[in-house]
């Protein structure tokens, strides 16, 4: 009779299992068969009443049924879970992956971004990077770089004079004397800085702009070295070989003086908007440091010499950023300036 009961139970379970729809009804079935008061427990409780000779068979059958039910429930459970996931996936709404995001990145003045790149190039070339005051003495700005009193250059440069007799530096060269005294007579130094000229503003002229200047002093420095150096610098700056040409120029602080033109990297010299159709960019005034400037910097011009070079820094910034009006660089116009972010 108990054996029959086992078979009966198995049949019942198979039917119950078929009707399971979800995890709740599965749990009900589990309790019904495997619970403390379930069928299996009930059958097991009758074990004592089973005659001795059938006990073995009975035991085996009950255990077999029990593990069948357990396995079956586990299988259904897995199936249900799988179905549940399929259901969830089916009911998932796709994100609007095209929504705009805000990285909340601020911005740097493009001068800062490009200055950092240029400064890194010079550091790689073994230069010290220096800094200088914006308010300077007349001596540092003019006398010490061989611009004597009454020199027309003092007029041309439209100096901003201050009420205490000092001035806003008109050229980064104002730092030359201090730098020669600090680092000379053998040195490689660059000094970017902000300079001031008292002139009317327009798209190409500012009264406040940036220059970058450098000096190389040593024994037996030559014009050939200067040309090599400028080519190397421009190559690093524009990331390609740049043809250069040297023309006679005139600056009181160098002798001989040159204008270094770079073949326009944007049109390869064919003539374009950037180079004003000339095919050349006038970027780097330079020359061999005037013996008077070395002397005033405490360096013996008979023993040492060197070259100095400038870089029209704001012009470079405008070329690299495509800004067509220099006045933006000093402006409070965040609509424009916030577009630059921090890398370029």
């Amino acid at each position, binding site marked *: 009779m108990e054996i029959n009961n086992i078979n009966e139970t198995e049949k019942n379970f198979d039917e119950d299992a078929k009707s399971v729809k979800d995890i709740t009804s599965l749990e009900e079935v589990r309790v019904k068969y495997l619970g403390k008061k379930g069928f299996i427990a009930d059958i097991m409780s009758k074990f004592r009443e089973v005659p001795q000779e059938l006990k073995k068979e009975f035991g085996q059958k009950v255990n077999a049924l029990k593990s069948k039910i357990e396995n079956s429930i586990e299988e259904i459970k897995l199936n249900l879970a799988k179905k549940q996931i399929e259901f969830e996936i089916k009911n998932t709404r796709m994100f609007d992956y095209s929504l705009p995001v805000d990285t*909340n*990145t*601020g*911005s*740097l*003045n493009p001068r*800062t971004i490009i200055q950092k790149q240029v400064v890194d190039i010079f*550091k790689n070339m*073994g230069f*010290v*990077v*220096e*800094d200088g*005051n*914006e*308010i300077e*003495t007349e001596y540092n700005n003019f006398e010490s770089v061989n611009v004597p009193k*009454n020199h*027309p250059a003092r*007029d041309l440069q439209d100096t*901003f*004079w*201050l*009420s205490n007799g*000092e001035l806003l530096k008109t050229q980064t060269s104002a730092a030359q004397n201090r730098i020669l005294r600090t680092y000379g007579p053998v040195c*490689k130094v660059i000094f970017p800085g*902000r300079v001031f000229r*008292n002139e*009317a503003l327009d798209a190409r002229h500012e*009264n*406040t702009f940036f220059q970058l200047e450098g000096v*190389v002093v*040593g024994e*037996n*420095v*030559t*014009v*050939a*070295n200067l*040309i*090599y*150096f400028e080519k*190397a610098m421009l190559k690093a700056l524009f990331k390609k070989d740049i043809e250069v*040409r*040297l*023309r*006679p120029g*005139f600056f009181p602080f160098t*002798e*001989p*003086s040159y204008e270094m033109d770079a073949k326009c990297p944007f049109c390869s010299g064919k003539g374009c908007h950037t180079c004003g159709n000339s095919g050349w960019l006038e970027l780097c005034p330079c020359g*061999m440091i005037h*013996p008077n400037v070395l002397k005033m910097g405490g360096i013996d011009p008979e023993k040492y010499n060197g070259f100095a070079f400038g870089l029209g820094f704001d012009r470079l910034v405008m070329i690299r950023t495509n800004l067509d009006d220099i006045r933006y660089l*000093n402006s*409070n*116009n*965040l*609509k424009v300036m*916030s577009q630059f972010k*921090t890398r370029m």
Partner: protein
Amino acid sequence: MKISINWINDYVDLSGIEPDELIKRFNLSTAEIEDVEYKGKNIQNVVFGKVIKVENHPNSDHLHILSVDVSSEVLQIVCGAPNVREGMVTAVCLTGGSVLAGKIKPTKLAGVESNGMCCSEAELGIGSDDDGIMDILEPVTIGQNIKEVWPVDDIVLEIDNKSITNRPDLWGHYGIAREFSAIFNRPLKQMPVCDLSKYNNLNQISISIETENCYRYSAISVDNISVKKSPRDMAIRLNYSGMRDINLLADLTNYVMLDLGLPMHAFDNKIVNGIRVCEADGNISMTTLEGEAHTPPKGATLICDINGDPVAIAGIKGGLKSGISDETNSVLFEAAVFDSENVRKTSRAIGLITDSSQRYEKSLDPELTFQALSRIVYLLNNIDNDIRVSSSLSDSYNKKYPQIVIDLKPEFISKIVGCEISKEFVIKTLKALEFGVEEDGEILKVTVPTFRATKDVSIKEDLVEEVARLYGYDNIEPKPLAFDVEPQKVIQSIEYEYDTKFLLAEKYGANEIHSYLWNYEDFNKQNKIETKSYVSLLDSSNAGQSGIRSELIPTLLRCLDENKNSFENIRVFEIGRVCSGLDSENMCIENKKLAIVFASQKKSEFELFTELKTAIIDIAKNIMGIDVYLEKGETVPYLHPVNSFRVISRTADYGYMGVLHPEVKKSIDKRFNVVALEIDYEKLANTIAYTKKIKSVSKYQSVNIDYNLLVPLEMTYEELQKALYKFKSKILVGYSLVDIYENAQSLKDKKSVTLRFQLCSNDHTLSGEEIEKFRSDFVEYTTKNKLELRG
């Protein structure tokens, strides 16, 4: 300055050299050519024609129908010129030819056929007269192409004036010709002049120089001049060089100026027959040739007649009264050299910059005056055979430039340039540029020609430039500098500056601005921002922008103001220089400062304040390795008196930060909550950083216990820390702030501060008793110190 190649060819034969080559070599060796004009290129098939008949046009009251003889045929041409008359010889552009305006085709004008065009000077580009068609008085052959007689074809180079400011010798064609001669190794011809020594027995013109600002004054007078108009070829050259032809005498002085670079002047000899060169007293007024009255400043140089009446402002402009008129037939020619600085100052003071003053500013060579006078008499005599020189060559040489001789070792040039340049090349080049060269053993004694000796060439480095530019910079092989393995000094504060800017932009979303060095006084006043200025610009083009800034926050607030209608959140910063005072010698004390302004319509002042405080602690700690914190103290009047604080470290005070003063805030824009910070950037960047130590971490489990402390609302965290300072426990690692809870109803004038205490031991797992012991110790401590524990 415009240079005519035809004119240059008078002095050096450039035939066979392509214009592109001329331009390129001149650019690389001498000065920058900005523009090139090919004159006459568009003038084609223009011939001399004679108007034989003039008839009125049936359909027009100003047009005429002309019959024009051009030798091969008689053309019917409709013409609108008012000066047309029968018998007139003019320039005619045949159909198929062209003038400046374009091609000439057969056409109908007001219904009448017209085959060709009668031209004015301006239409041919050879003169400025456009009042009517050319009225050619000189003998010409009818039907001949004008280009066969007149030098219409020419190449005109425009030289960048800035590139020759240091070269007084290049302000005339002869000087430019000398350069071409040296560049292309072709001989330089002598300039034809008249030998004036034959007039030495004539009377001297009285010349007295009464100022240091005149180096030399030379003059000669000429009578019986009857020709009034310049010959055509001379007029064309003047026009091509950017001047207008006026009358023969004025044109001649201009021509010689463009020839030699020395400005000249012609006075009517009936009015001026003696010269005094004087200093102006600042009161005398003179009317110039243009009819404008000027009062030259005290110290300006004036040319006066014998009676002391001014007849010219020296080196700048002649006077009206003594000027050349149609009646003038007797002149006094002036060739003089004045002090460059004096001319420049006077020219700026009276606002009159002329072709003459521009040249005098360059320091002209006094040796040129005789050449200029010999040249002008030569030219005049060629044009007008009947002239009579009426004085001897008169001269007063007041100041001479010293002769400059430079000792040069030829190898010095190679040493500086960095490539081998032969002694022969050095000598040849210097001689081509008219330097005197004498060999003296190893040394060359180089005599600087007078036209280069006024300021341009004085030391051996100048000679390097002369030789190297003609050697050709493109012939110098670039060479690397000697290799150098010394590590370079790194200036930390400059590196930190970039790091700071990147951190502020990338992590705190702030925008960097570069603002001007001066205060905006109107803006500051209007918004009640009180800021000092220790020094000011003497000459600012903008009123109210002359005081040099001592702080950056006001300029950032101006940026906020300019952007307040475009953004809800504004975060800006600047690292910039200010003048923060004057030292004992009245010199500016300059500082590099960092200022940041955070403003928002959404965030509370406290939120913004916390963000700004985070930013500065971040910069100081993570870039410079310095712990900074805030302390109550005096700040600036435009910050909130309660919520503004000093930014300090253990060793220094760097500046301040805080909420904007409510009055300033309301004035700028009440919608925005604003916080601002300003510190001495260099001081912070140069503070010695602590060495970072890594804390050892226990391998045993730690335990966290949270306590809520009920404290008075106004108690600061710093005060709470002080109250807890004396509590000691061996297993306490530290505590941190979790939350602050305020509730006016339930907590009234108190707030609940939740602190998380971390307990741990380095050598064992904590036991229950140890933790219990901590709890009871802490409760006991709080009770004793009147700290209320909640919940």
